[in-house]
């Protein structure tokens, strides 16, 4: 029977169960250690208590050993030097739960209390002075009420409540022997109840505001208990070495005799007892558990549990039990689910959940969520309770602690894998679950200095992949913090957001990598950001050398700093863009510079072009002076053309030779220029030059271009037969064109003419069709 080892305390029951058996057994005698445990299944810190051993005192630095609740060592640290507050020594410390988080209060040797409400926000508050306090208070504690933490200080038999506003209030309590000094006090976990221990061994239990007294219990012990704490809100536990006394609010008590020195850990719903051989948990039996397992309980939950057991045994009584609770079956199921949560033994959990599931079968519209959630929670709780992990959380503690905190704690204890599996099991979104843990893991990984950079980076990359919510730059900055620059760079490679990479790289003075990353990102802003940083930090020459081989950076910089860098372009970047069109006219030095640059860059072609341009400019200047007409800014072709039009043939000839204008070009040029000038005689003469470079059609074209059809006609007879048709078409003489095409017996040409025919040219169209028939006939 589950209720067999329940211990009655008044009309409620308490139970004590073993959580772990400890293996440290022989090595550690708790009596010789100072034990500092952490609540919520937290670890234990042990420090050898040397105070009774004067031989050992001196310069030996004490070692603090940390163990999990299951007694597995998790580390040790050596206290390097015990800090002393500037001019005051700390006498005593209380850690308390304020409305903001975990708080710390210290009592200094001049008997003042200082308090920090939240360890994340270190604002120290000094509490008011207790009047007439000239020795250490006999007992003190911190009470959080109405959103404010106050210290309750006992000076012999007087009680004072002091706050950080400088106020103190003397409190009076309803004690049977008021003159006795208060030796110890305990404030319950929920800050609602207060227990006092007096000189003569009387335990006073009342409400935290001291207004209500529940009972007074005489322990008859004049010795102050080694530990005096609450076990949940329902009982006070006092410990004298091996004797443990549990006192209920109605003067009921239970006493235990432990077989070794133990240490107590106050929890929200009970007390953890750390002994030599095992860790036990002492708590009040939760109400639902009591309802189900109490002997002869008629609660629906109890009936359902019974029914389920009968069902297992394949007995028809199961049905009877179900029938009796038919109307309250939903309550029964809920009770079973709740009770399962409070169980520590997986077998019991299973039995209760089975019962709940059995009961659920008879319900049609029962919300399955509580059942499902409970199964999930229990799985997780059982996992973390595993001695290897050693976090003995109860369900109600977890509820208070929340899952997120539990995961954080697992992460801090470096149980990354378990934490991730829990997140995945709970289907938490990746960004707040798994990837956050991965990030922690990576940061931890980075701290392992014995591993090779590449391996670490690879391992991290391998695990994290592209998980959303992971910022490689954060990990990298962690790596940077611990001086692993190379690793940081490697990690940053994986960071997809260049905007995060770049500042860090700059911080590491890896300007070149930063610049490359910025360029790769395509974010111009970022590139400018790096460039400007570089420009400010590097000597100018070095800066230019750095960017000259990076076209993107260079062009961006030039865009920005255009005018100022013009000269630089010449000198430093031969073969690059030459110079802006605007300066062309100004003068020669710039051209000579350009030419030199090109020579250096072995771009002979361009150098030659520059030389030609210099020559041309000289000519043009001369021409302007001699002929009083503008020639500047014209190209070679245009210059010659203009010269011919202006009737300066000699000059034109000279330039033609100087610049080696090809004959063909010269012909085109001359024909056009003559036609433009209307020098038809000259044109005619030119057409009769020996060794003509162009066919007569060029002349026809030129004449037509300048609107002289009559002149054009003159050249038609001399046009070669195959070009004639085209010329005639251009002239608009379709009839002749058709005839010419027919003469050449060229059907394609005939078609060409035909296509040009419009409605008005019916006659010609017919004529062509005739020709075409004739051609076709002739071929046949």
């Amino acid at each position: 029977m589950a209720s067999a080892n329940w211990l009655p305390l008044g009309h409620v029951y308490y139970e004590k169960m073993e959580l772990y058996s400890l293996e440290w057994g022989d090595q550690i005698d708790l009596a010789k250690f100072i034990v500092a445990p952490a609540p919520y299944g937290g670890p234990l810190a042990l420090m050898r208590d040397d105070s009774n051993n004067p031989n050992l005192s001196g310069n030996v630095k004490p070692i603090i050993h940390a163990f999990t609740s299951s007694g597995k060592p998790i580390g040790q640290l050596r206290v390097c030097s015990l800090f002393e507050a500037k001019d005051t020594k700390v006498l005593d410390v209380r850690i308390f739960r304020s409305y903001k988080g975990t708080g710390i209060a210290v009592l200094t040797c001049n008997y003042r209390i200082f308090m920090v409400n939240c360890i994340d926000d270190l604002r120290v508050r000094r509490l008011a002075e207790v009047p007439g306090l000239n020795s250490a208070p006999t007992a003190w504690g911190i009470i959080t009420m109405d959103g404010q933490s106050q210290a309750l200080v006992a000076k012999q038999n007087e009680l004072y409540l002091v706050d950080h506003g400088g106020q103190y209030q003397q409190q009076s309590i309803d004690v049977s022997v008021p003159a006795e000094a208060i030796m110890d006090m305990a404030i319950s976990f929920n800050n609602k109840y207060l227990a006092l221990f007096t000189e003569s061994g009387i335990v006073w239990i009342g409400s935290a505001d001291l207004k209500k007294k529940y009972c007074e219990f005489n322990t008859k012990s004049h010795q102050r208990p080694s530990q005096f704490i609450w076990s949940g809100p329902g009982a006070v536990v006092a410990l004298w070495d091996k004797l443990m006394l549990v006192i209920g609010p109605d003067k009921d008590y239970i006493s235990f005799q432990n077989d070794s020195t133990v240490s107590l850990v106050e929890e929200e719903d009970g007390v953890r007892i750390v002994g030599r051989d095992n860790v036990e948990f002492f708590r009040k039996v939760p109400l639902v558990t009591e309802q189900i397992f109490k002997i002869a309980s008629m609660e629906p939950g109890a009936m359902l549990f019974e029914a389920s057991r009968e069902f297992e045994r394949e007995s028809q009584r199961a049905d009877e039990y179900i029938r009796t609770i038919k109307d309250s079956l939903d309550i029964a199921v809920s009770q079973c689910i709740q009770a399962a949560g409070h169980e520590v033994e997986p077998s019991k959990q299973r039995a209760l959940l089975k019962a709940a599931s059995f009961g659920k079968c008879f319900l049609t519209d029962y919300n399955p969520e509580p059942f499902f959630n409970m199964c999930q929670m229990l799985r997780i709780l059982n996992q973390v309770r595993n001695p290897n992990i050693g976090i003995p959380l109860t369900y109600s503690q977890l509820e208070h602690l929340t899952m997120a905190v539990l995961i954080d704690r697992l992460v801090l204890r470096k149980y990354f894998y378990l934490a991730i599996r829990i997140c995945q099991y709970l289907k938490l979104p990746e960004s707040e679950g798994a990837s956050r843990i991965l990030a922690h893991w990576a940061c931890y990984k980075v701290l392992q200095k014995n591993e090779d950079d590449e391996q670490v980076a690879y391992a991290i990359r391998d695990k994290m992949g592209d998980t959303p919510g992971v910022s490689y730059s954060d990990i990298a900055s962690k790596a940077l913090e611990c001086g692993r620059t190379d690793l940081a760079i490697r990690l940053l490679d994986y960071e997809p957001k260049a905007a995060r990479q770049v500042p860090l790289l700059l911080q590491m003075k890896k300007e070149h990598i930063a610049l490359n990353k910025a360029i790769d990102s395509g974010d111009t802003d970022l590139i400018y950001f790096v460039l400007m940083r570089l420009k400010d930090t590097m000597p100018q020459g070095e800066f230019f050398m750095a960017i000259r081989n990076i076209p993107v950076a260079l062009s961006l910089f030039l865009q920005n700093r255009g005018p100022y860098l013009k000269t630089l372009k010449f000198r430093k970047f031969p073969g690059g863009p030459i110079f802006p069109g605007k300066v062309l006219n100004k003068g020669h030095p710039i051209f000579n510079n350009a030419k030199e640059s090109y020579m250096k860059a072995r771009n002979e072609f361009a150098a030659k072009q520059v030389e030609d341009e210099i020559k041309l400019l000289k000519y043009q200047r001369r021409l302007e002076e001699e002929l009083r007409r503008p020639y500047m800014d014209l190209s070679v072709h245009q210059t010659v053309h203009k010269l011919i039009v202006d009737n300066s043939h000699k000059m034109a000839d000279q330039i033609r030779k100087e610049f080696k204008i090809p004959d063909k070009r010269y012909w085109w040029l001359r024909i056009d220029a003559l036609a433009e000038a209307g020098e038809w005689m000259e044109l005619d003469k030119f057409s009769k030059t020996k060794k003509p470079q162009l066919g007569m059609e060029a002349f026809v074209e030129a004449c037509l271009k300048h609107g002289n059809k009559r002149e054009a006609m003159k050249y038609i007879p001399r046009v070669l037969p195959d070009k004639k048709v085209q010329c005639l078409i251009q002239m608009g003489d379709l009839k002749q064109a058709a005839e010419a095409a027919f003469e050449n017996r060229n059907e394609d040409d005939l078609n060409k003419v035909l296509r040009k025919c419009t409605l008005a040219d019916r006659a010609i169209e017919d004529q062509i069709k005739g020709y075409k028939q004739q051609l076709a006939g002739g071929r046949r």
Partner: protein
Amino acid sequence: MAAAGNEKFPDMTRLNKKSRQDIERCLNEFQGRKDLVLDPDLMKPLDRITGGAAFLKDNGVDKIFKLDRADKQIKLVGCDRRVYLVRPKINIMKIIADHISSEQSRGENRKYRIVMVPRRLFLCEMILEQEGVLGHCDLDEVDLNLLPLDTDILSMETPEFFKSFYLDSDLTLLQTVSKSVHTIQGITGEIPNVYCLGRAGKMCYELLKQMTGERLIQPDYPRSEIGHLFLIDRGVDFVTPLCSQVTYEGLLDDMFGIQCGCVEFGKDITQKDQPVKVRLNSEDEMYEAIRCRHFTNVFDFLKSKAQDLQSLSDKRKEFTKVKDMKDFVANDLRKLNQSKANLTYHIGACEQIIQKKNKGDFVEYMQTEHSLLEGTALRENLNYIEESINKQNSLMSNLKLMCLTSLTNDGIPARDYKSLKTQFVQSHGFEQLITFHNLKKVGLLREQEVSSQSRVSAGVAALTRNSSFKNIRKRLNLIPSVDVDLRSPCDMSYVFSGAYAPLSCKLVEQVLQREGFSGMEEITKHIPGSVHADVKLRTPGKGIKGMTNQPGRPAPVVLVYFIGGCTYSEIAALRFLGKQQGYKFIVATTSLFNGNSMLNTVIEKSPL
């Protein structure tokens, strides 16, 4: 889901609405009456977004000035608050800084707010700081990126993208591109299948992924209104924009220049003193019918349309009842007159185009172009180009042919390159050397790399070897083997008179067929900057088999984003492809352009 084909285009005017709200917010945040100083670059887009000055007045704008880039000393007289709506450029910042500091020194007290479009740049801030005016002004940004010009055309209208990205390697605008895709996805849902072609495409996708970043909700791909996204780097296909356009819309752009979906017709077409702005979009039914046609096919249509209109207006002579007449005047007359006016404009434009094409050696030009695309007779073509340079033909057409030669042959053989360059400089002036440099940097025009082994044999090899364009052309069938009927085309190559199918569109077609690049390795290895596909939702029966286990299919709507610019011919080809294969294509681009406007951004302007 509706079957492919009869689905409507996702409503892209929502983009417009968003932009309008952004402007509204930005203006209203700066409380009180204020003057607005506008960047001339932003005037047309702003006009399209807001639909006129009334909108601005409603939002507290008092006077509107144009920011004059030339005149720095201009005095703006207005109220004590001023908003600058500008592109984040250095010279503009300098002008603004001049304004502010001179007004400050005159003791005029004003509040300034500088709103940068599409985003605020660190660089600009830095300049304002250097000029010592940062303290006097608020900075803000408004993300106006894509402008819906039509149901299926979105454009950023930033022609400077081409220069800044390809020539100055400035990646700022690439971010804007990604942002714009992000905005679209915000409206239509995340696009499941993404195909990137070329460097810019890939970079843009990387940025986009960063923006999408850590999302909490898994996107619902089958419900996304757009099923496929192409991010095409213009550098993948420089050839197509260099070809002379022969669709009606393309010709309009080549001849008159379409800006922000509007074309301005001059006096010789409209017979009016003022130039007339005509909005070109699918709302105009007649225009919708002719815009994608091959030009030879337009005139006849217009003729028949004219007859229709005539008969329609003749109808009123038959009216006997007053009511009929009233109805006609009330309903049809306005529309009729509008159609008539439009018709006249289009006919006028056609005539102009024909006139221009008849002049000069248009035929030879086209022949050369086609022969370059086909890869035949390189020698003759080079001769033609040389002759064309010698004849002092227009700089643009010469450059276009040279670039085409270079692109189709992996560069121009070294000796020819030098001679052409010399000739070109002699014709058009020395400063064109810079143009050559620029074109080389962009990758449009370069000299063939000579293998160091032997220079003699290299010359021969250069003429015979296979260029990457040749390979792509062969594998993608860019030159149709059959004659294409230009009146009722069966192949998208009709947009270039059946001589060439635009490479970019052909790639889109092939990738869509496979939903990925598998099996295209021989082609993709020739694409500069490589390719990348991210396919999350397959149409059943496409691509790799056995991967169709996801539910749903992508919407048959394809967003093709041309990063660096896009021509009207390509749009026409995609529309054709859409009709043929049951897709809806939406074209987004940094700007709509043609060969001339593309080159115009990178050539050195002659000082004349």
